[in-house]
């Protein structure tokens, strides 16, 4: 950050258009690491973000998996929360009004055990002030549904086709890195009418306590997130952005503005910050500020000019 570039007080334009939603900046708080925004709203004003994504919501309340639900790994963590959530009705009643009042875009992350549950969730959300529905086809922590759809192009295509007619809200399909080929599942989502794809969700992993000879997680396996997975996520975002025309929401291990810019260059229109918030509660806001400083230092007036501007080596 030595070269001065633009004066520190000059405004840089961080706004992006994400399938018709104008975001103040491309930084969203990822699902599952930001609750419903209540706790973090005490830490910094959420209006400084592009948007927030709710914890995954199901039709009925879910208890989630038994603890332990977390294992630390090298530069990452495994979680097996298992979609603990109050169910859509309690969410709409108790949480959404608060989220909407924060002054940034609001996405609701949904998960279902079968196509019918996804349909019902999407219908229920259609007449709410939600800006974007993020359809989680990639949760590794529940036995039913979810990942089963997300693992193959055919599964994604059939599910998205069923939910598409039920809402006019923009749909972002959240893809799993465990898919046969993530470009194919992304293409399937696009052709079935998705407005965007979100990637990546966590990678299925395991940690073992060699003293007890048991997995650390009560659920035996969990989802790997954090900087450890960044190179894999970045490669997938680049691959998918080169394949589909709908916007890509990139995530996986982003901790800094620099990381976020790498995802933008790789082709993401917006990015999400997940696990970083667990270590640094102000991570999302810091990423926004670091993107802005970097743009000033490099005389980049608009964040849009970064999107997809990666030049491949010959």
């Amino acid at each position, binding site marked *: 950050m030595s070269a001065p570039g633009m004066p520190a007080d000059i405004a840089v334009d961080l706004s992006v258009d994400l399938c018709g939603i104008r975001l103040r900046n491309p930084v969203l708080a990822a699902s*599952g*690491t*930001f*609750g419903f925004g*209540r*706790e*973090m709203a*005490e*830490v*910094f004003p959420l209006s400084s973000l592009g948007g927030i994504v709710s*914890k995954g919501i199901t039709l009925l*309340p879910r*208890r*989630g998996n*038994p*603890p*332990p*639900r*977390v*294992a*630390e*790994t*090298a*530069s*990452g*963590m495994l*979680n097996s*929360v298992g979609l*603990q959530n*109050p*169910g859509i009705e*309690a969410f709409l009643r108790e949480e959404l009004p608060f989220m909407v009042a924060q002054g940034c875009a609001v996405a609701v992350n949904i998960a279902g055990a079968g196509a019918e549950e996804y349909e019902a969730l999407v219908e229920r959300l259609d007449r709410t002030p939600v800006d974007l529905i993020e359809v989680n086809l990639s949760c590794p922590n529940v036995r039913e549904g979810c990942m089963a759809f997300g693992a193959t192009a055919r599964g994604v295509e059939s599910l998205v086709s069923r939910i598409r007619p039920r809402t006019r809200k923009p749909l972002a399909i959240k893809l799993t890195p465990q898919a046969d080929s993530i470009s194919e599942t992304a293409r399937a989502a696009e052709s079935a009418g998705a407005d965007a794809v979100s990637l990546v969700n966590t990678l299925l992993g395991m940690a073992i306590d060699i003293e007890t000879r048991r997995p650390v997680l009560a659920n035996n396996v969990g989802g790997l997130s*954090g900087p450890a997975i960044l190179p894999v996520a970045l490669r997938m975002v680049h691959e998918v952005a080169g394949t589909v025309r709908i916007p890509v929401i990139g995530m996986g291990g982003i901790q800094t503005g620099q990381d976020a810019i790498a995802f933008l260059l790789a082709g993401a229109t917006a990015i999400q910050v997940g696990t970083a*918030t*667990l*270590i*640094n*509660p*102000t991570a999302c806001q810091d990423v926004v500020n670091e993107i802005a400083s970097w743009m000033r230092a490099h005389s980049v007036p608009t964040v849009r000019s970064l999107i997809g501007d990666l030049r491949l080596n010959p």
Partner: protein
Amino acid sequence: MNAEGEGVSGMANENGDRFHTDAVPREAPILSCRELLPGLMLYRIQDPFLASCARPGQFVNLKTPDGFLRRPISLCRIRPGEGAVDIGIRALGAGTRALCRMGCGERIDWIGPLGRGFLLPPRSNQGTSDDADRPDRPLLLAVGGGIGIFPLLGLLEEARARGMGTLSVLGFRDPSQAFLLREFREISDRSLFASDTGGLDHHGNAVEAVRQLLSDPSVRQAVGKGGLRMAACGPHPMMKAVARLAEDLGIPCQVSLEQRMGCGTGVCLVCACEVRRKNPEGGPATDYVRCCREGPVFDAREVVWE
């Protein structure tokens, strides 16, 4: 930063007590450190904000030089006058081992205070040490084992400051593993130290020692109108046994639970503790709540013990 300012929340509990929490990372210098036992350090750390609003039983979440996630550590003593707090850390895995290598002058990166601490009855009148024998003053019995004794020291201080009578029972594997005995003796009207291998006040475990203490006529006599409360922190089996004993005897008891944490601030839901709760939606009679936010201190009767 003041207690009602930005980034500070007030979580009111059923008794109307408010616990202030703060998740903005701060760097705080280590003022002094003391090796209690090999691999067990007591640090005094400067953080006037924390010292001004933290309550016994709350915790901080520390960055460690060797590890990815922060590590939750209970506040031991809270020293508003000095703008500092004490914490005790046992070197267990790589993360706490690295923390225990830190020395004076180094800075700790932490967030806090976090969670809900112990509830104490409101100060009825200005308690001073000379009302130590007032028959209607409430009594607190703190029961601890291992590193679980740290938060109890601050709790007993606070209880005495509120005019309560203070009793403590601490359990250790053997006398060589015991620590902070002098401090607990000083802050307790009556203390009883147990060791599984003998050599301290009581030969046996902490729960037996509690039973012994409670059967002592002078103690039974001291339980006047103000009543007796218990607070426990230590190994899971100890807390479970203390909870059962308290329930049998009809004594209100709070326990400080431990659960592996991610954020410590309530956003990630990994720190599930199973408790009995009135579920407004119907459904199961127990629920997972967040150790870091609804806890770590719970009413012992709420807890679903494995």
